[in-house]
């Protein structure tokens, strides 16, 4: 019998708010242990939670960015369970009345066909504390760091629409891009600001039954999500093929052994409406106010970049995944740079150079205007590509403009034919062997001769002119 998997995703995203969800403590979990705590997030007697306005706004922006419908009425519930990472015996989450319902993301599936994957709902919740297990001599001790307790999270729950690891991975990539776009989170699985659980079951292909699912956790990259899903599909198919029952449980992905392993069942408590956090009522005006802050989403931007600058769908799509890069590109276009060389130089030269210097694109001293000046010198043939790369390197160190650097260093390209003819003649005279090779039809000898001319000119010769002259002289 052939099986098909039924996969749903639960994605936790840590919002990049300044404060925690219910108090004013800084939302910096990485600080010194328990530095960011107060009576509210430690749940001292008499403390009262206050829902952060910024968290509500960011969560709402995220919902709208994913095409979800914000609910006029949502509320917090208490997810009751006892664990030392939970300072009050329950986690505040929206179990019954979530912040938004619906929404979805379109991706290209394996066949290159666009396909939409639906989101069931998105709700807000608070993060829990971090447990650290250590040895105090021979005595095991557990330490609790409450910096993360109360950090603002949203959970995105999809419909069980996925039929392959590929679809789930593509969905996560697009989701990450869209959430970054609205500025709600960095969405890094590596640092834990995005955490993905996958619910996987299998069924005979072509049926619509819903079988017992297994939850898989502990993947810390999108690739691991794909690997874990693929493994789990295999495992369950083999189990069912051997007439073993699949039981509801949770498994952890082991990235070293590349398998999922069963974990002890976590006790699932009830969800009781919370009497202390007021019901969230969103007016149509408030929702429209948030919608007005929604940036142009990646798919829309890609479409526009194609239309306005003649980029291919692939180029525009790639450019739009990162709002910073897309913004930089558009600034270059605004400064009059042509689209194709602009894109080429941005992606092959500037981005690697910025990364190498461990800078952020938004903060690099090579601003779009300065970079545009350089690219224009190149476009006018005032300098050649090699020189441009060199000047770019200097622009990271100095505040001078590209033209200034070119002038100061005497980098200006020599395009004057009379001057170049003289150098070409010298090289031809000095390299009879290469000249003979070229004449006997060995194409690569031409490249060698051009290189010799470039060297003789101190790298300043216009290679286009040099080539013309050489071919004219020898051909």
């Amino acid at each position, binding site marked *: 019998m052939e099986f098909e998997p039924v996969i749903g995703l639960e994605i936790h995203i840590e919002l990049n708010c300044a404060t925690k969800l219910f108090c004013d403590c800084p939302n910096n979990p990485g600080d010194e242990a328990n530095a960011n705590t107060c009576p509210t997030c430690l749940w001292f007697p*008499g403390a009262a939670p206050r829902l952060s306005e910024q968290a509500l706004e960011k969560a709402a922006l995220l919902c709208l960015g994913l095409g979800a419908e914000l609910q006029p009425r949502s509320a917090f519930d208490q997810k009751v369970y006892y664990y030392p990472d939970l300072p*009050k015996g329950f986690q505040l989450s929206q179990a019954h009345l979530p912040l938004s319902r619906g929404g979805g993301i379109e991706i290209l599936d394996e066949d290159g066909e666009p396909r939409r994957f639906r989101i069931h709902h998105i709700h807000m919740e608070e993060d829990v504390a971090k447990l650290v297990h250590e040895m105090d001599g021979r005595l095991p001790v557990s330490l609790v760091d409450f910096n993360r307790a109360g950090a603002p999270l949203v959970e995105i729950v999809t419909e069980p629409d996925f039929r392959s690891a590929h679809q789930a991975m593509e969905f996560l990539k697009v989701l990450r891009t869209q959430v970054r776009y609205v500025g709600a989170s960095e969405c890094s699985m590596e640092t834990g600001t995005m955490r993905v659980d996958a619910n996987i079951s299998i069924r005979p292909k072509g049926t619509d039954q819903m079988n017992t699912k297994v939850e898989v956790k502990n993947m810390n990259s999108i690739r691991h999500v794909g690997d874990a899903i693929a493994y789990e599909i295999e495992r369950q198919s083999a189990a069912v093929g051997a007439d073993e029952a699949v039981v509801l449980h949770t498994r952890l992905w082991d990235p070293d052994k590349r398998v999922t392993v069963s974990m002890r069942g976590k006790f699932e408590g009830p969800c009781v409406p919370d009497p202390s956090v007021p019901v969230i009522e969103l007016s149509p005006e408030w929702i429209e106010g948030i919608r007005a802050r929604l940036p142009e989403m990646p798919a829309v931007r890609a479409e526009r970049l194609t239309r306005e600058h003649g980029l291919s769908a692939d180029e525009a799509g790639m450019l739009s995944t990162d709002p910073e890069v897309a913004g930089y590109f558009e600034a270059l276009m605004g400064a009059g740079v042509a689209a194709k060389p602009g894109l080429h130089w941005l992606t092959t030269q500037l981005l690697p150079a910025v990364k190498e210097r461990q800078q952020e694109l938004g903060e690099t001293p090579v601003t779009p205007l300065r970079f545009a000046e350089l690219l224009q010198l190149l476009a006018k043939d005032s300098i050649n590509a090699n020189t441009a790369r060199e000047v770019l390197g200097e622009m990271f160190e100095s505040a001078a403009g590209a033209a200034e650097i070119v002038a100061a260093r005497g980098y200006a390209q020599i395009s004057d034919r009379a001057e170049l003819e003289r150098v070409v003649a010298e090289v031809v005279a000095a390299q009879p062997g290469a000249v003979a090779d070229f004449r006997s039809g060995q194409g690569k000898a031409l490249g060698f001769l051009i290189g010799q001319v470039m060297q003789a000119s101190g790298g300043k010769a216009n290679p286009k002119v040099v080539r013309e002259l050489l071919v004219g002289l020898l051909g």
Partner: protein
Amino acid sequence: MRFTALDDATVVQRLRSAGIRICGMTGMSEFGLGLTGSSAGRVVETKHADVELVLDLMGESRVAAVRVGACGFKPSYGLVSRYGVIGLIPSMEAVGLLARQPRSIRTVLGCVAGADERDFSMPEEPVPGFDEEWTVPAGTRVGVIREACSGLTPEQLTGFQQGIEELRAAGCAVSEVSLPDYPLFSLVHKIVGSVEAASSTGRYDSVRYGPRAPGAKNWNEMYLGSRGAMFGTLVKSYLFQGAYFQFENYAAYEDACRIRARLLGQTQRLMQEADYLVLPCPPRGGAEEKSALEAVYAAFAETLWANVTGQPVLALPLPGSAGAVGGIQLMGPRLSDARLLALGEMVLDRRKGDR
């Protein structure tokens, strides 16, 4: 609990800044639930204080008051900040006030009532004018709840009828009104209250503060040991009951929430038939309650209504032996606190005049 508060509760802070002298602390029952071991009412009775603050979860401030011949008041839900209050039943509890005269309650309530930026559960509502001169209009309609008298002793019933006569004599139009669902207040309070209590006490896990039971081998043992040693019998049985509804019978809890909503609607309808509702306030809830949950609920049967619906309610002592007769409760619509207290003042002023 070996825990020192980091800050004054908002009510305490407001009392201090209003220049009111805080002369002591009332010994309360565990988490304020019931009156076992509570000294509520004693300092007012002995005139060592003009006003006492007593947490009102199920009627404690009112019952404690009428037992000593004083007045007890539970304000409208959300009128007085609960910041700093070590609560148990967030959706029902309120800071109650206890005094010999409703006037003192009105003065103190005027100091502590109103929005608090540290209690975010308080609705943004205008505070009733506690400084204003309230007159009770002639023909004010009071509705006596027919179903509320079944548990009274003959002496308490006679006293209650005398109280109703006083209202009539003061110019009120007295009628009898009926709420057949009246017995459900106790059920709803017990289920919703115990579930909220189970959640509210989850924080006492001995991880961050409080005494920790020694010798535990893991966190689960630590919880059981610490909480087992910390909580008293009554609170334990209450939390046990709440956990039962949370984990084993959630449907019953949902039913209780639905019934609570229905009772709120029925109360609002009754408030159109009458300006105030009247119930007895028997002087129970003392030694006889011991620690049995059923006994506690039986002792507070007449006072649970206002906690379930969040209304303001004033208990006045009745003429006669306080310990035997008890009092009468006047319950108004939400935010009628000031005029409700004015009605109480008028009744007691007239009584004084008669003597």
